[in-house]
C-alpha cells in the first residue's frame, strides 16, 4: 500500500513538473504577450493540480490534506481572474496581438 501511494505520488509530481517545464518553454518560445499567457495557463491549471495531488497523497494527516485542497481551490478561483485583469489591461493600453495571417481581417476592437 505504501509503495502504491509513493509511486502514485511520484507519478503525479513527475507529470506536474513536466507541465511546468512545458509552460516555461512556452513563455520563452511564443511570439507575443497574449500567446505567452496561454502558456502560463498550463502551469497554473493542470500543473498546479498535479503537483498538489502528488503532495496530497503524501500528506501525513487530514489537516494538511484539507489545507492543500484549499490552496488548490484558491488557485483555480484566483488565476483566471488575474489572467483576465492582465489581458484586459494590456488591451486597454493598445497592445496589439500578433494574429495569424488568415485571421488578420477579423474585426479588431476599436476601443475595448
Amino acid at each position, binding site marked *: 500500500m505504501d509503495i502504491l501511494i509513493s509511486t502514485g505520488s511520484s507519478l503525479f509530481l513527475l507529470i506536474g513538473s513536466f*507541465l511546468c517545464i*512545458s*509552460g516555461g*518553454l*512556452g513563455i520563452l*518560445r*511564443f*511570439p*507575443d504577450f*497574449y*500567446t505567452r*499567457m*496561454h*502558456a502560463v*495557463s*498550463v502551469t497554473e*491549471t*493542470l500543473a498546479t493540480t498535479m503537483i498538489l495531488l502528488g503532495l496530497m497523497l503524501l500528506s501525513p494527516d487530514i*489537516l494538511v490534506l*484539507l*489545507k492543500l485542497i*484549499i490552496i488548490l481551490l484558491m488557485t*483555480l478561483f484566483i*488565476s*483566471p*481572474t488575474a*489572467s*483576465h485583469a492582465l*489581458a*484586459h489591461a494590456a*488591451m486597454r493600453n493598445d497592445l496589439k*496581438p*500578433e*494574429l*495569424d495571417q*488568415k*485571421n488578420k481581417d*477579423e*474585426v*479588431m*476592437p476599436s476601443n*475595448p
Partner: protein
Amino acid sequence: MRHTFTLALSLSVFWLINSGHNTPLMLSLGAISITFVLYIAHRMDVVDHESQPIHLTQKLPGYNTWLIKEIILANILVVKHIWLGNKSISPTMSRIKVSQKTDIGKVIYANSITLTPGTVTINIGKDEFLVHALLQESIDDLQSGEMDRRVTQLESQC
C-alpha cells in the same frame, strides 16, 4: 438569512482548517472573529445570492466534472503545440455570443473560458465576449456553443 448561515458555516470551516488548534481560548477567538466578519459583511451589504451562490450547489458538481475534463484536454493540446513550436499555432481574436442573463452566469462563463488553457477572455460586453485564443480550433469549439449551453443550463437553476 440562508446566505448569512452559509457564510458563517464556510467561514467556520475555513477557520478550523487553517488553525488546527482546539483549545477553548482559540475557539472563542475564532468565534469572535467570525462574528466580526459577518457584521462587516452585513454592513457592506455583500451577503446575497452573488457572494453565496447556494442555488447552484445542486448542479455545480456535474458542471465541474465536465469542466475538469475540458481543462485536461485543452492542457494536452496546448502542451502539444508548445513543443511543436511557433509554426503550429494560429493566434485568433474573436467575439463570442453570450446567452446568459445574470451577472453570475456571465462570470462563470468568462472564468471557465479563461481557466481553460488556450483561451483568454479579454473584454466582457453586454451580450458578447472578446476572446483571444492560441488556436483557431479553440475559437471554433467556443462558437459551437457547448460551454455556453451548459453554463446557461447551470444558471437557469436560480
